[in-house]
């Protein structure tokens, strides 16, 4: 059995079906990318795994346990943590408070101080800004807080929703570097991206999502070479 196993889920947004018979799996320690354009259903997929949405049919298993009708809080408690699209920081709270809220779940709360040290080591800049109000940070710093906040929850599986969105190219590079570092420390990463090149280069495997269906899957290196991907997503 895989670490995370998504089996033939169908997800609706109101009356509109967004995801069709989608299956995928993530193994422990892997970095897996899901790539696709806007509206392909990437965010919906992550929200479904986080149980913000529930599939109309199909199943999701994590560490062999079924995530049927679980609440988002239970998902976090089990170790699946999502860093949402657009950062979604608690804008009027300080960096410190944002991070501490990240360690809200009981599993993480005990090791809050330890996590904080780790996060500050990874992002020294945040340590300098610890009492600054999140809203006043720059875009890159905000993305750091978002990822750090996710790490504070001590994830077994970290899901990142378009971490490169709205960042200058140079920042994108460093964010992806950070993600690789997180993976190297042993956290499984599920990455959702539009930036095909960067994300596939740091991933082990990848899925291509098109119109709510898996259009392709395979080793990241293979996908990068695939002519269809190049044509459709890299604009070559």
């Amino acid at each position, binding site marked *: 059995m895989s670490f995370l196993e998504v089996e033939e889920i169908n997800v609706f947004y109101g009356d509109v079906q967004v995801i069709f018979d989608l299956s995928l799996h993530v193994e422990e320690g892997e970095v897996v990318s899901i790539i696709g354009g806007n509206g392909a259903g990437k965010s919906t997929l992550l929200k479904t795994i*986080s149980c*913000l949405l529930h599939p109309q049919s199909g199943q999701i298993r994590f560490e062999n346990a079924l995530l049927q009708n679980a*609440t*988002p*809080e239970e*998902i*976090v*408690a089990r170790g699946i*943590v*999502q860093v*949402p699209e657009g950062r*979604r*920081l*608690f*804008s*009027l*709270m300080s960096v410190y*408070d*944002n991070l*501490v*809220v*990240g360690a*809200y*779940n009981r599993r*993480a*709360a005990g090791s809050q101080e330890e996590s904080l040290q780790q996060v500050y080591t990874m992002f020294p800049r945040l340590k300098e800004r610890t009492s600054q109000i999140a809203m006043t940070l720059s875009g890159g710093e905000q993305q750091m807080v978002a990822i750090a*906040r996710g790490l504070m*929850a001590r994830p077994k599986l970290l899901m990142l929703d378009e971490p490169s969105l709205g960042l200058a190219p140079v920042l994108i590079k460093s964010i992806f570097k950070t993600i690789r570092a997180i993976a190297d420390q042993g956290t499984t990463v599920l990455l959702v991206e539009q930036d095909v090149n960067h994300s596939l280069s740091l991933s082990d495997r990848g899925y291509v999502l098109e119109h709510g269906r898996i259009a392709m899957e395979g080793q990241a290196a293979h996908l990068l070479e695939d002519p269809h991907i190049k044509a459709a997503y890299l604009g070559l």
Partner: protein
Amino acid sequence: MIFVLEDTINGILMGSIYGLTALGLTIIFGVLKVINFAHGSMLMVGMYVAYWAVALTGLHPYMALFVVVPVMFFFGYYVQDLIIKPIFKAEKEVREPITVIIVTTGIWYILDNLTLLLFGPDYRILQDNPLRGKMLEAGQMLISVPKLWGFCAAVVTAASVYVFFQKTRMGRAIRATSLDREAASLMGINQYKVYNIAFGIGTASAGIAAITLVPFFNVYPTVGVLFDIKGFIIVVLGGLGSIWGAIVGGIIIGLIESVAPQFMTATWTEAIVYGLFLLVLFVKPSGLFGVKYDW
């Protein structure tokens, strides 16, 4: 001059109690983004609980705190959990669900009239409580002792709530939820539990206000209505969602009510309060202490 000073002191004391009655309203709005029209009725329920706790046991009125606060906390907790939560679930997409306003108004009608059914329309006041009619004499000035305690209660309650929100795990979770419900969920925070707790805290603070009122105020089924509109005005003056704003807003209303009648008939002070309220709304819509942040 001494008159004005005396009136000013009374205005500040009574006003801080008004602020305390409105504190829960501002807390609940800050977190749930909903105006709780039943807040006055919650205050009324708190007054009945305090009244009976004291009348049946003969406790010192302020000892009722230990009964009223937990009772009111769980009362608010479960009112939100059982009645208001379903609406939030049904209207997930809406930021300020107007339907909740109707539901809280429904709760208002039910609570007031249920109380009428249970306890009748009688006016009750704690007869032989040690605080009754206690006045502090300072020269020619007379200052009401229960009101003075009310002022202390208001400041202490507001400070405790403030510290709770700033420094505790749950307090941060509540603030996080008020800023971004979905992101808070993704951090493992149960949004509805936070709502329940915030509603509980809001209601419990109405309970504290009830305790400060009971030694010198009448208890009857429709007493909450008197404080309802006053509460709305106070929280908007102070800035919806601002804890200290509620206390300051209350004191402003208290001062107007206390000082203005010395220069005109008391009936005109109401008009002044409404006028000032509209003026503040037009000039600084986020209130005196409100964050210039779009709720």
